[in-house]
C-alpha cells in the first residue's frame, strides 16, 4: 500500500455527507415518520421475572374505542433470534415469560394514549415460577423434577447453563511451571447498557400489493429481513426493510426485535401503517448490552516479562435470551492474545441464563471485560518485576505477520508505536513515579478486530456488496446495504468513490440500507463497515474508472496509461493537453459501453484455526490502542476526577481523519463512562438488599438520570494520536476505529487510581465508594484491594486441546 500524500479525500477531514441535515433537524429518524392513517402500537409487558402464561383476555382492550387490533403470542409463535444456534425468542411470549418486561400482548390504536390505556384492559393470568438472578443461581445443578419450573430454556447445555466452552492451546500446566512469577486473581465487570439517545422505533406498512415495508432504527436490516420472513411466514422477497438513520446504536440495535415483528404483524392485520416507539424504560429492558462477567485469571511470567501461560475462567450472566451470547462467550477468550505473545493459553467459559434483560453486543463485545483483567494484571506484574508498565509491554509485542497462540493472523501491529507516542505525549513513565499523593497515572492497552471473519449465519456469499451507477450529469450513485449509525459510513463510502473517480464529494450520492434497493451488507457491527464496504466499493468503482478512461482515451487519442482523473477533469498526467470534464468523459463512456453500472463485493479471507470455536476472533486485520489516564483522587473520600486521557490508536490509514478522531473520542467517552459509573443492575427481591422495594428482576434504575452516564462536565480533555501502519487488508490500509479505542480506558483508570492512592479496584465500575472502602482497608493495615472474593467451584468440561501454530 504505502503512504500517499496525493489523496484528495483519503486521510483528510471533511464534513459528514449528511452532517448539515442533522444540524438542521431534517434527518428523518424512524419516530419522525408519520404516514397517513397511521396507528400506534404498544406492548404489554410482564411484571414477573419468570412465570407461565395461563390465560390472556383481550376482550376489554378490543372493546375500547379507538383500538383497532390486538395480538398475543399465539398469533406469531415461530421463534427467532440473531444466532442460528439460539432461536429462542418469540415476538410475544407464548407459554411463559422469562423476565420483567417480556412482552405478552400488543395493541394498535388510533393514538398512543389510547394504546397505552388499552394495555390496562388486557387481563393476564400468570403462574409464578422460581427465578434466577445471579451467576451463582444460574450455575446450580437442577434435578430432573426441577427442570419444568426452574429451567429458563429447555435447550440450555444443562440446567440454566446456556453454553460451556473449554479450549486449550499448548500446555498451560507446563507453561506455569516455567514461569518465574505466577498470579492468580479474580476480576468482575458489571453489566451496562448502550443508552442510545434515540429510543428504538419502527414503522410498518402492508401495501395493497401484499408487500410489507418496515422502517426501523436498526444496525442490521439484513438480519431483520430474515427474521421477519421467518416469523411472519412470508417470502423475504415480499418484505422490504429500510434502516432509518440510527440515533445511536453501539450494538443495541443489532438484534431483530420483538417490536419490529409485532408492528409488522399489526400492519398486516389492520391494513394501515403502524408505528411503535419504545419508552426509555422499555429500552433499558430491551438491552442486549454488556454481559456482567466474573473472571478468574491465572498468568505466568518470566523475569524478562514474557508470558509463559495464561488461563481464563469466565462466567457470563446472559439474561433471559441467547441474543449474541454464544458469540459473546467466545469473545471473552478470543482477543487477549493479539497484543503480547502468550506461549500457552487456556480459556474456559460458561454463559448462564438468568431472568433479566438479555445481554448481547455492546461496543467491544465481550472483549473489554477480559482486556480489563489482563491490563490490570500486567500492571501488577510490572510491580513484581520492578519494571515500568509501558516498558513491560514494549518488550514483548506480537510481531507483524505472525500468528497468535489461538491461530489469529496479526498482519500489522501498531501497539509499539502507540505506546511510545502515548508515553511521549503524556510523560507517563516519568510522571507516574514522581506523582504527589492523590495524583495518579495509569496505562491500558487493547486490540480489536475490523469485522468478524464469518457471517452470523453460515453461507459462502460476500459480506458486503456495492453497486454504482453514473448519471450523464456526472452524478454518481453508490448503493450499499451498510447502515450509518453516526459513525460516518455513508461518508466513508462517498469519500472512497470520489477519490477513485477523481471527482468532488458533492457529486456522489449514497443510497444505503434498503433491502429493495441495495445489495446486502451484513450490517454495522464488529467494526466491519469501513474495511468491508470500503473494499467492496473499490472493487465496484475501479472497472468504471477504467471504462471512463478507455472512452476518453479513444476520443482524445491518448493512451489510458497517460490519462488520469482529478478534480473532476480527465487530463494527461504530464498536464500537456487541455483537460476534459468528467461529465464529457462519462457521456463518451456511456455512448461506447452502454448504460454504465458496476458491482463490487468483499468477502474476508478465510483465516483462523480449524477447531470448534475458531469462528470467533478471525478478522482481516486488527487495530491497536494505548491509553494513559491522569487522575486526581482524594485520599480521604475516594472521590476522583479524570484530568486527562491520552489515546493513541493504530488506525492503519484514516479514511476521514475527523471522523476517526470522532470515533476515538466517542470510544474514550463511553469507556470512561463505563469505568466510572454505568451499571445495569436489578433488584434481587431480597429485602435486606433492596429495602423491599420492587420484585426480583426489576431494573433498579431504568432512567437516564439514575443510570449514570458522563455529562459534558464530567468528560476530561482527550488528546488523540493517530498511528498509521498502512495495513495490506484494509481499503487504503485502513483498520477499524469504532470499538478498539474503548478497550484501554477502564484498565488505565484502575491503574491510575492505584498509582494515586494505592487502592486496587479489580472490578468495573471503579467508584468512589469502592475506593473509599479500599482506603479504609489500607488504614487497617490490610491489602486495599477491592474486588470479587468468591468464585464458583463448578467443574468445566474437558478442554479441547489445540496445537499451537508453528
Amino acid at each position: 500500500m504505502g503512504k500517499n500524500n496525493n489523496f484528495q479525500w483519503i486521510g483528510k477531514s471533511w464534513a459528514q455527507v449528511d452532517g448539515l441535515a442533522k444540524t438542521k433537524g431534517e434527518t428523518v429518524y424512524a419516530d419522525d415518520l408519520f404516514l397517513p392513517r397511521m396507528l400506534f402500537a404498544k406492548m404489554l409487558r410482564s411484571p414477573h421475572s419468570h412465570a407461565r402464561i395461563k390465560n390472556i383476555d383481550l376482550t376489554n382492550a378490543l372493546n375500547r374505542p379507538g383500538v383497532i387490533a390486538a395480538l398475543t403470542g399465539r398469533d406469531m409463535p415461530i421463534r427467532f433470534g440473531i444466532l442460528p444456534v439460539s432461536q429462542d425468542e418469540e415476538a410475544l411470549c407464548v407459554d411463559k415469560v422469562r423476565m420483567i418486561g417480556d412482552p405478552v400482548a400488543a395493541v394498535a390504536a388510533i393514538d398512543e394514549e389510547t394504546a397505552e390505556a388499552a394495555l390496562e384492559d388486557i387481563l393476564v393470568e400468570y403462574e409464578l415460577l422460581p427465578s434466577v438472578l445471579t451467576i451463582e443461581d444460574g450455575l446450580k445443578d437442577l434435578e430432573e423434577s426441577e427442570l419444568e419450573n426452574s429451567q429458563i430454556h429447555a435447550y440450555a447445555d444443562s440446567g440454566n447453563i446456556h453454553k460451556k466452552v473449554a479450549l486449550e492451546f499448548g500446555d498451560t500446566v507446563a507453561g506455569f511451571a516455567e514461569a518465574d512469577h505466577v498470579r492468580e486473581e479474580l476480576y468482575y465487570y458489571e453489566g451496562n447498557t448502550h443508552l442510545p439517545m434515540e429510543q428504538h422505533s419502527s414503522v410498518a406498512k402492508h401495501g395493497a400489493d401484499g408487500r410489507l415495508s418496515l422502517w426501523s432504527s436498526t444496525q442490521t436490516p439484513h438480519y431483520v429481513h430474515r427474521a421477519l420472513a421467518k416469523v411472519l411466514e412470508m417470502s423475504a422477497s415480499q418484505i422490504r426493510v429500510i434502516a432509518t438513520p440510527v440515533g445511536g446504536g453501539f450494538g443495541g440495535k443489532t438484534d431483530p426485535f420483538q417490536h419490529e415483528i409485532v408492528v409488522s404483524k399489526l400492519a398486516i392485520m389492520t391494513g394501515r401503517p403502524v408505528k411503535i416507539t419504545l419508552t426509555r424504560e422499555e429500552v433499558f429492558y430491551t438491552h442486549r448490552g454488556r454481559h456482567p462477567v466474573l473472571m478468574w485469571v491465572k498468568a505466568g511470567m518470566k523475569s524478562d516479562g514474557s508470558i509463559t501461560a495464561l488461563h481464563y475462567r469466565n462466567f457470563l450472566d446472559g439474561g433471559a435470551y441467547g441474543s449474541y451470547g454464544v458469540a459473546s462467550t467466545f469473545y471473552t477468550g478470543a482477543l487477549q492474545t493479539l497484543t503480547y505473545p502468550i506461549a500457552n493459553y487456556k480459556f474456559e467459559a460458561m454463559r448462564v441464563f438468568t431472568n433479566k434483560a438479555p445481554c448481547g453486543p455492546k461496543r467491544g463485545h465481550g472483549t473489554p471485560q477480559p482486556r480489563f483483567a489482563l491490563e490490570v494484571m500486567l500492571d501488577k506484574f510490572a510491580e513484581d518485576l520492578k519494571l515500568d508498565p509501558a516498558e513491560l509491554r514494549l518488550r514483548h509485542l506480537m510481531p507483524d505477520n505472525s500468528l497468535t497462540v489461538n491461530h489469529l493472523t496479526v498482519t500489522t501491529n501498531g501497539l509499539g508505536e502507540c505506546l511510545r507516542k502515548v508515553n511521549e505525549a503524556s510523560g507517563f513513565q516519568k510522571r507516574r513515579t514522581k506523582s504527589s499523593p492523590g495524583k495518579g497515572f495509569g496505562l491500558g492497552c487493547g486490540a480489536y478486530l475490523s469485522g468478524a471473519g464469518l457471517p452470523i449465519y453460515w453461507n459462502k456469499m460476500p459480506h458486503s456488496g456495492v453497486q454504482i451507477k453514473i448519471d450523464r450529469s456526472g452524478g454518481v450513485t453508490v448503493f450499499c446495504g451498510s447502515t450509518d449509525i453516526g459513525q460516518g459510513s455513508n461518508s466513508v463510502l462517498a469519500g472512497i468513490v470520489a477519490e477513485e473517480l477523481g471527482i468532488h464529494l458533492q457529486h456522489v450520492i449514497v443510497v444505503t440500507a434498503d433491502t429493495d434497493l441495495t445489495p446486502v451488507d451484513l450490517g454495522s457491527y464488529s467494526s466491519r463497515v469501513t474495511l468491508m464496504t470500503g473494499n467492496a466499493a473499490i472493487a465496484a468503482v475501479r472497472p468504471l474508472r477504467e471504462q471512463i478512461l478507455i472512452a476518453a482515451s479513444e476520443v482524445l487519442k491518448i493512451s489510458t496509461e497517460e490519462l488520469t482523473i482529478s478534480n473532476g477533469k480527465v487530463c494527461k498526467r504530464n498536464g500537456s493537453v487541455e483537460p476534459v470534464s468528467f461529465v464529457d468523459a462519462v457521456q463518451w463512456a456511456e455512448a461506447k459501453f452502454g448504460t454504465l453500472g458496476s458491482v463490487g463485493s468483499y468477502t474476508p479471507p478465510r483465516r483462523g484455526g480449524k477447531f470448534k470455536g475458531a469462528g470467533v476472533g478471525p478478522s482481516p486485520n486488527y487495530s491497536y490502542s494505548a491509553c494513559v489516564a491522569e487522575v486526581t483522587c482524594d485520599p480521604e473520600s475516594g472521590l476522583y476526577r479524570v484530568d486527562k486521557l491520552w489515546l493513541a490508536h493504530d488506525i492503519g490509514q484514516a479514511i476521514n481523519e475527523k471522523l476517526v478522531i470522532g470515533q476515538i473520542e466517542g470510544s474514550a467517552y463511553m469507556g470512561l463512562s463505563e469505568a466510572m459509573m454505568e451499571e445495569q443492575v436489578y433488584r434481587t427481591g431480597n429485602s435486606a438488599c433492596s429495602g423491599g422495594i420492587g420484585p426480583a428482576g426489576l431494573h433498579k434504575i431504568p432512567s437516564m438520570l439514575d443510570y449514570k452516564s458522563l455529562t459534558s462536565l464530567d468528560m476530561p480533555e482527550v488528546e488523540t494520536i493517530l498511528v498509521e501502519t498502512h495495513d495490506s487488508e484494509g481499503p487504503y490500509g485502513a483498520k477499524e476505529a469504532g470499538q478498539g479505542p474503548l478497550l484501554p480506558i477502564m484498565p488505565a483508570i484502575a491503574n491510575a487510581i492505584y498509582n494515586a492512592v494505592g487502592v486496587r479496584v479489580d472490578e468495573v465500575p471503579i467508584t468512589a465508594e469502592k475506593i473509599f472502602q479500599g482506603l479504609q482497608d489500607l488504614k487497617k493495615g490490610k491489602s486495599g484491594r477491592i474486588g470479587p472474593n468468591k468464585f464458583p467451584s463448578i467443574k468445566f468440561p474437558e478442554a479441547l486441546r489445540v496445537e499451537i501454530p508453528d
Partner: protein
Amino acid sequence: MKQLLTLTINGESHEVWTSTNKTLLEVLREDLNLTGTKHGCELGECGACTVLIEGEPVLACLILPLEVQAQDIQTIEGLTKYGSSTAEPKPHPLQTAFAEQGASQCGYCSPGMLMTAKAFLDKNSKNNSKMPLDRQSIRHALSGNLCRCTGYSKIIEAIEQAANQTS
C-alpha cells in the same frame, strides 16, 4: 379533551386543535410536523427536546403548550434563515460549525444541543459577556444535554468556532 391553541414558533403563528394534556414536545412533533425536536426520555432527563422559550432553553417534554401560548418559541427548524429568492439559505454559524467539526455523529442530540448552545451564545457574545466564553462555561451550559457518541469535545470546539464567528 381538546382545545384550540395559538402558538408562536420561529416567528410564525400556528393554530392547533389538540388534546390539552399533550406536552409541547408532542404538539410540535405530532400536530405541527416540527419533528426536528427529539424525544429521548420523556422525563426531562436527557435534554434532547430542548427548545428556546423567550430565549431560554426549556425542556419541551415538561411544558404544556397552554402555558406558553403568549411566548416566543424557537425550535431547530428556525435556526437556518430562509426567505430570499436571490440569497442562499443561511444556516446559523452553530450549524455550520457543528457540521464542519464533526459535532454531530448520529445527530440525535444535536437539535437539543444546538438550541442550548444558541441560548448560551446569545447571552455570552464577546460584546456582552456576563460569563467568560471559555470551555468550562460551555461545558456548564451543555451539562443538561446528554450525548452518547461524541464525548462532547467536538461539540465544544464547534461552539467555540461559532462564538468567534458571531462576535
